[in-house]
Structure formats: C-alpha cells, structure tokens
C-alpha cells in the first residue's frame, strides 16, 4: 500500500523528519506514537501534501505511484485521506454540498459518473449512522460552530463517504471525551477492511484501546526509534517516553 523510504522534510528551513522508513501493507493498522514535537503531525502533513513542508529527501510510494509528485487533491482522489487534527470551519458551505463535490471529484478521477442525488442521500444516511451524526449536523456549514468532538466525528464521516484506501488519523483523539472517543473509534473500526489501511497518529495509548493496531512505531526527533506490536503502546503508557529518549540517545552516541 505505502512505502516510505528515508523521508526527510523541513519546515521554514528547520529539519523535522530526518529519515523515516515505514512500510504499510494492505489491511494493516499502524500506530505512530511519540512525544510532542517528534514529527508525527509533520509526517501526516507531508503525506497529505501540505505545501508548507519541503521534502528534502527520500521517497513515498503509494500503490506503486510516487505520492510526493501528486497534488493534494490527486492524493485524495487516489485514496489518501487525512483526518485533520484541527478541522477547519468553513462558514457558508454546507456539509452536504461539500461532500457531494468531493465524492464526485473522486468518482470522476476513477472514471465514474457523478452520483445520482437519491443514491447520494442514501449513502449519506448510511454513513451518518456510523458516527452517530444527525441530519441537523450534516445540513450545517462545514464544522461551523461544531464542538471538538463533533468536528472529529465529521472527519470520520467524511472518511466514510470518500472510502479511502489509506486513512491517516492525525491525533483524532485529542480533545475528545471518552464517549466521543468511542464513537469515533467505533466508526473507524466499522470501516476497517482487508483492502484498506490506517495510520493512527496519537500521543496517548488511550485511543489504541479502541482501535487496536497491528504495529506500533515510536517517532522521536524525526526518526522511528522503535517498532513493535500493540503491546509497545502499553509499555509506553506504563513507562512514559523518557526511556525512548534514552534509547535514542544511546543510538546516536553508539
């Protein structure tokens, strides 16, 4: 699905990612954890194509194609979805119209006809149920006046509508109370399939109680310093990040 090789990226001349190597197979869930400032969100942004970041080295191959060569919209159309850490409020644009435009762009890219309005509404209703969104929320402007939890649910709702192949959840758990967290995690789990992959970026282990990863990677100072199974998350939770820092220090000095 996705192969990241020696990826280096900087923002405003400051190097943030210092050589990331990561391979994500079909149907897998990978958690990327790490202390604040380790580069987690930068990795998500680079994969989604945010323009403030300069890729200074390495490659990213998505389904055999060079991801870094694609515009953000083409990445989305090819099936990369970023659930934003801070979803943007867009007054005046209704969720429905926005999603109709987005879904039809993805379909156009795949050589499909625009969706019939009726089929679109049926699909909306079905996906709304996944994240317990009501009609009133969907009729409103995109994220306008939404609570933190509502915004994150809306991200997962959009993900459900766009049916991506690779979803990147960027700190989707931040600012969520336990009920909202469960709703969001439940939505993600229901969308899981053998054909799709997920990257869960999080600071805390808590989300991983609900979205159980196949692999856990620890990012520190722009490098993946440790990888393991889901038990690594529990270890981090128990021990904190300090031992990882020591580990990284050892590596550098060695």
């Amino acid at each position: 699905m996705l192969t990241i090789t020696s990826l280096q990226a900087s923002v405003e001349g400051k190097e943030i990612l210092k050589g990331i190597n990561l391979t994500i197979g079909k149907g897998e869930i990978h958690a990327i954890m790490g202390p604040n400032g380790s580069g987690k969100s930068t990795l998500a942004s680079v994969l989604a194509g945010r323009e403030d970041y300069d890729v200074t080295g390495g490659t990213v191959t998505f389904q055999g194609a060079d991801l870094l060569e694609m515009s953000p919209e083409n990445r989305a159309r090819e099936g990369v979805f970023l659930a934003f850490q801070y979803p943007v409020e867009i007054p005046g644009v209704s969720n429905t119209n926005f999603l109709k435009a987005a879904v039809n762009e993805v379909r156009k890219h795949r050589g499909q006809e625009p969706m019939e309005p009726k089929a679109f509404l049926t699909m909306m209703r079905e996906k709304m149920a996944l994240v317990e969104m009501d009609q009133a929320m969907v009729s409103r402007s995109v994220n306008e006046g939404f609570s933190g939890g509502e915004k994150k649910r809306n991200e997962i709702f959009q993900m459900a509508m766009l049916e991506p192949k690779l979803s990147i959840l960027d700190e989707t758990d931040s600012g969520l109370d336990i009920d909202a967290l469960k709703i969001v995690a439940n939505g993600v789990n229901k969308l899981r399939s053998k054909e799709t992959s997920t990257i869960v970026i999080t600071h805390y282990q808590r989300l991983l109680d609900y979205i159980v990863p196949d692999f856990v990677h620890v990012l520190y100072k722009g490098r993946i310093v440790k990888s393991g199974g889901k038990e690594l998350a529990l270890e981090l939770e128990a021990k904190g990040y300090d031992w990882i820092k020591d580990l990284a220090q050892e590596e550098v000095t060695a």
Partner: protein
Amino acid sequence: MSEVLNLQEKLVKEFALVEGALNGQAKTPVHAIRKQAMKRFAELGFPTIRHEEWKYTNIMPVVKNDYVLAPQSSTTLTKADIEPFLMPDVKANVLVFVNGAYAANLSTIISTKNVEILPLVEAFTKKTVIVEQHFAQIAAWQNDAMLALNTAFALNGAYIEIAKGAVVEEPFHLLFVNDSRAQSTFAPARNLIVVGANAEATIVESAHTLATGENVGFTNVVSEVVLADNARLHHYKIQNDVEQSHFIGALYAHQEATSVLNTVVVTLSGGIVRNNLSAVLAGKGADTHFYGLYLVNGKTLVDNHTLADHAVAHCTSNELYKGIMDDRSTGVFNGKIMVRADAQKTLAYQSNRNILMSPHATVNTKPQLEIFADDVKCSHGCTAGQLDDESVFYLRARGLDKEQAQALLLYAFAGEITEKIGLEPLRERLETIIAERLHQELV
C-alpha cells in the same frame, strides 16, 4: 480642469433651458429648492480627490466625457431590449426609465391597491403636500455637489407611496436604462418613496447602460425614502452594468419609530460606481440593516459610503459589507456610525471584510464612529486579506482542485450577503451569476 468646467457649464446651461420650459411650476417651493440646488452645484463644482468624501474615488474619468444631457427624445427601445434586465420568474411592478424619462410603454404596473405610482414630475402637481414635506428634506444637498446636481435636475424618476397598513407583495423594480448608443449620455433620476405606517414593500433598483464604441453612460440615481411608524422597506440595489458605464447614486432614508429598513447593495461590474447610503433613525426602536457585496474585476472601482445616524434612543443598526476584488479593481468602503447625544441604548454594529485576489487589486476601508451618548453598544471592524490557505488545503485534501476550492470559499464568502435578499428568485439569479463568475458549478 477645463474639461471639468465644460460639463459643469453644460449642466448650468441645460438647467436654464429646462427651467424656461416649465409651465406654471416655476414658482412652487419644489422649484425654488431646485434653483437653489443648481446654484449650489455651480458653486461647489464636481468633487475632486481633495474632498475628504471623495479621497479614493477620482471622478475625473467620469466627468471628462462629452455627454448629452438626458435627451428627452422618445426612446426607440422595445420590450425585447430591456428583457435581459428584468427579473425572471418575479411578478413585479416594473418601472422603466430611459435616460431618466419614464417609459410607460416599457413598464408594467400590477399593484393598484393601496399604492400610488407616478413619475416624480407628476407627483409634483398631484401629490404636492407630501412632496413638499419630504422632497430634498431627507437628502441634505447643501454641502454635497453631486446631490445638489441631482436635486436640481429632479424631474425624472419615480414617486411611490404605500398606503398605511398595506403590505404590497409584488416588488417594485425601478429600472434605469442609460441609452448611450448614439452619444454618451448623462442620465439623472430622482425617486421619492413614502412607506406609510405599518406598511411593507420591496424595491429593486438596477441601472443598465447600452453603449457602443467609445461611448460611456453616466447614470445618477438618488432615492429619498420615508418610513413611517412601524413601516418596513426592503431595498435591493443590483449593479451589474457594462464597463462603459459610470454610476453615482445614493439612498437617503428617514425612519420613524420601530420602522425597519433592509438594504442590500450588490455590485458585480461597471466602470466607476459610487453608492451613498444613509439612514436617520429618528424614531425610537427603528432598525436599519445595511448589507453590501462587491465582487469586481478588471478596472472597476466601487465605492460605498454609508451613514447610520442614530438620532434617538433604542435604535439598532447592523452593517456588513464584503468585497472580493480581482485584477486591477478597487474597493472603497467608508462606513460611519453617528450616535447623537439623545441616542442612549443604541446598538450599532459595522463590519467590512475584503478579499484581494490579485496583487494589483486595492481596497481602502475606513470605519468611523462618532458617539455622543454614553450608554451604547457599538462595534466596528474591517479586514483585508487573501483566502485562508488552511481552508483551501482542507478542501483540496478532500479531492477538490485548487480553483474549485477557492471558488467554493469565495461563493460562501459572498453568500453571507446574498442570503440577506428576501426576494428568492432575485437571490437565486444573483447566486447563479456569482457562481458562474467564480467558474464553478458546485453548488
């Protein structure tokens, strides 16, 4: 400078001619005002950028042209010619003025109950009492050259009177056609709109220029509006004229207690466009809403000057003007809130927000607050900037390309104003035009 004097001289001369042709009206109070106004215009001359009120709007390109002055000759226009200027799917009273003169053959009047509709010049004799009470009383022309000029030439235009308690469902479309095909034409017009107590009406005003070659149309429409107690008026001014047109116009309202004025000014194209808008909140509980959208490109200059004048207590004014400027277009916004000493408990809000789409587009925005009362709530603010990058990226990350994302955001930005238009077919039509302008078929 000599060119400026030319038009000014021409106007003075024309006035003397028109005056000479007056039969029996020469001694009326209205005529006396018009004569004084002409004298005042001759003294003041056309405003230049040295005048504070015209600092950012140089009208030399407007006045330098060689205009004929609203030729009274009968028009050759047909209903088919004005068809594109009409609102489709709206049952409206359409009053068409060609080069200022009322064109009965092109007009359609469907509301007859509780409504008095007359060319202004007829109202001078048929509605003398009301006219003398209000004409040139709401719009203070004494220190405003453009207004003095319009007052002097106030013969053409509409008189609309809505009877007490009448709710007129059908809107009035005041359609001003400047026919400059044969020669560049200066077409002034003046309206007097009187809305009786508890009455309600909707007025749509638009100006359209027919020009060929180098010809330029110069249209000058001023409306005076009186709202009696609890009256409601919705006034929509739509400006989507050709490049070879200039428009300088104004609306002056006087509001009695608990009356409501809703104004929306939408400017989509034209040459130099100047709109003055002023409401005096003269009765307790009066409420006024000023909304404006200017979505312009090319070299269009659009200047909106507004004044919400709170004269008494417990009144509300709410103002939002938004601009999107591309190419080398210019926007000017000058919004003044005046809260006089007696106007305690005033609520007055004003906001002006601009998006510049091109490095060559400019906006000059100036909010002004003058507050002489101590127990009031007032706020104002203005912004000028580009589209939010994060919003654009968010939409792109969902599959919309950059142009679509920008168009959708701009459409939404403009939508906050167009949604204030209560006349649905008009709103939809404008939204379609705006969507087309933004090259998008998304919504």
